[in-house]
């Protein structure tokens, strides 16, 4: 009734079905395209945008320098924030209740208050505390600094942005660490690895898969947040410089566009970077050429039961 007569006919009658038509989708698409086209057209033709001025200042040397400063601030603040966030996330999991508590308060405070206010305070720190004195509290003074000499505008900007961001990232890292299977921790413990090593070598690298996308969001956000360093005041970043030009020429819109274009360019580069970082941390998980032998292999990474070598051993055997 049924048997092994398959494969005997030389030519296969492959199914080439006529796809379902989705006119609604294409109309929807067309409407969207139309809107985009209209928006683009009015963007180009509306004289308020003054594309000549945009062109003139896009590669202005001041603007180009300010991009450098903006990038420096972004990178420095994110590096500081990531370092602190890892520390905070580890502290949050510590056995020492004091560490856990400090970590919680830190996140609560820095997430809770506006970064602008924080930056104002970092700018005022030398006003509020003109000298930083190291010594025994209520006792002798060892040595002291003029705060102004240490906390320059650049340092204040980096520290202010970094500390604020660390609170947001700490939450992201916390969620990431939580997402790693507890079996990983146990397996590493059973091998005699110590907790700090386990965190660094086993848990964190796996958590990165979950951590990277929201951190990308935060980095792109930070790029724009740097414009708030005006509060310190730090006056070399992209927004400040384009604002200054706008003030001089009374042409704010084209200069906002100049800034927006540059932010967009940097964001695009960051998104490319994020793509590669995501891919790096996906190694062994996302970007492996799975052999989906099991229909449900994708279901459980822990039991990713592929048997890549079992098919093929019987190749060509005709029953």
């Amino acid at each position: 009734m049924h048997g092994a007569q398959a494969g005997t006919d030389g030519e296969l009658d492959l199914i080439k079905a006529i796809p379902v038509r989705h006119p609604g989708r294409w109309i929807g698409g067309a409407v969207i395209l139309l809107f985009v086209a209209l928006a683009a057209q009015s963007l180009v033709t509306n004289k308020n945008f003054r594309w000549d001025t945009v062109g003139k200042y896009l590669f202005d040397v001041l603007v180009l320098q300010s991009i450098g400063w903006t990038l420096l601030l972004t990178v420095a603040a994110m590096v500081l924030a990531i370092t602190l966030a890892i520390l905070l996330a580890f502290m949050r999991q510590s056995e020492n209740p004091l560490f856990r508590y400090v970590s919680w308060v830190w996140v609560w405070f820095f997430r809770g208050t506006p970064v602008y206010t924080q930056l104002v305070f970092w700018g005022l720190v030398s006003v509020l505390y003109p000298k930083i004195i190291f010594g025994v509290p209520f006792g002798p003074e060892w040595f002291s600094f003029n705060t102004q000499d240490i906390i320059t505008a650049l340092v204040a900007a980096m520290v202010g942005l970094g500390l604020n961001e660390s609170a947001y990232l700490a939450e992201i890292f916390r969620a990431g660490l939580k997402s790693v299977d507890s079996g990983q921790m146990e397996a590493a413990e059973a091998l005699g690895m110590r907790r700090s090593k386990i965190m660094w070598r086993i848990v964190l690298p796996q958590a990165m898969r979950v951590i990277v996308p929201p951190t990308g969001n935060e980095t792109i956000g930070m790029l724009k947040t740097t414009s708030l360093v005006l509060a310190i005041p730090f006056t070399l970043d992209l927004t400040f410089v384009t604002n200054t030009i706008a003030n001089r020429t009374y042409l704010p819109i084209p200069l906002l566009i100049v800034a927006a274009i540059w932010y967009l360019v940097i964001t695009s580069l960051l998104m490319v970077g994020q793509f590669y970082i995501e891919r790096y941390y996906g190694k062994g998980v996302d970007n492996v050429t799975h052999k989906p032998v099991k229909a449900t292999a994708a279901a459980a990474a822990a039991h990713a039961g592929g048997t890549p070598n079992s098919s093929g051993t019987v190749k060509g055997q005709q029953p």
Partner: protein
Amino acid sequence: MTETSANPRKQGADVKPLVSIENVHKFFGDHHVLQGIDLQVNPGEVSVIIGPSGSGKSTLLRCINLLETISAGRIYVHDALIGYRERNGRLHDLSSKQIANQRREIGMVFQRFNLFPHKTALQNVIEAPTQVKHQSKTAAKLKAHELLEMVGLSDRANYYPAQLSGGQQQRVAIARALAMEPELMLFDEPTSALDPELVGDVLEVMKSLAKSGMTMIVVTHEIGFAREVGDTLTFMDDGMVVESGNPREIIANPQHRRTQEFLSRVL
């Protein structure tokens, strides 16, 4: 266990098959995974498929349920062509709505249960009847309690999957599929993710289903189940049907070398 394969209803020569798989091929890229499968399952029959890993058993089940599209051949369930409409000699894809309609007639139980973890056992069972068949919640719940009773879990209705053992989860998965009152049930290694002690419960439920006359296609490694419950046994290898027939005969007397090899490993 009573041996039920002598049931004349199932063996009648003039019975129209419920499932008819005709020369089905499936490619994944260049990989020729199903190389012309023919298989018929009569109403009320339990058709057991065995075969080594990678031989295409899961793929075949998934093609029947439209989780994969076939590359060539035809699959009919209840005389309806699965996945396509034939008009003027040409095949047209079915719309997603029509595909959903066809799937309703076919219940599937997966190796890894795939219960909805955010819903209790009861909610898992009534999800499809209320959402797909638009039954009232009360009616669906009544039916769901019956089904949970049947799989021996009436006292676990309000547990979340994470609170159930593997065997209990798999039984809820069976009740969930049955709640749609399918004509055909597909089982893809329903016990292979279970510890040996938990296997029995699930096999018990499947046996009673078979006795109640449900048409079933079962991919399994449980040779005992195949022998006791199966009406036909099909051995697949390398995307082809190697041997097919009465389970006890094949298990006792495999004709092909591959079948012999395979059975010696599994038994």
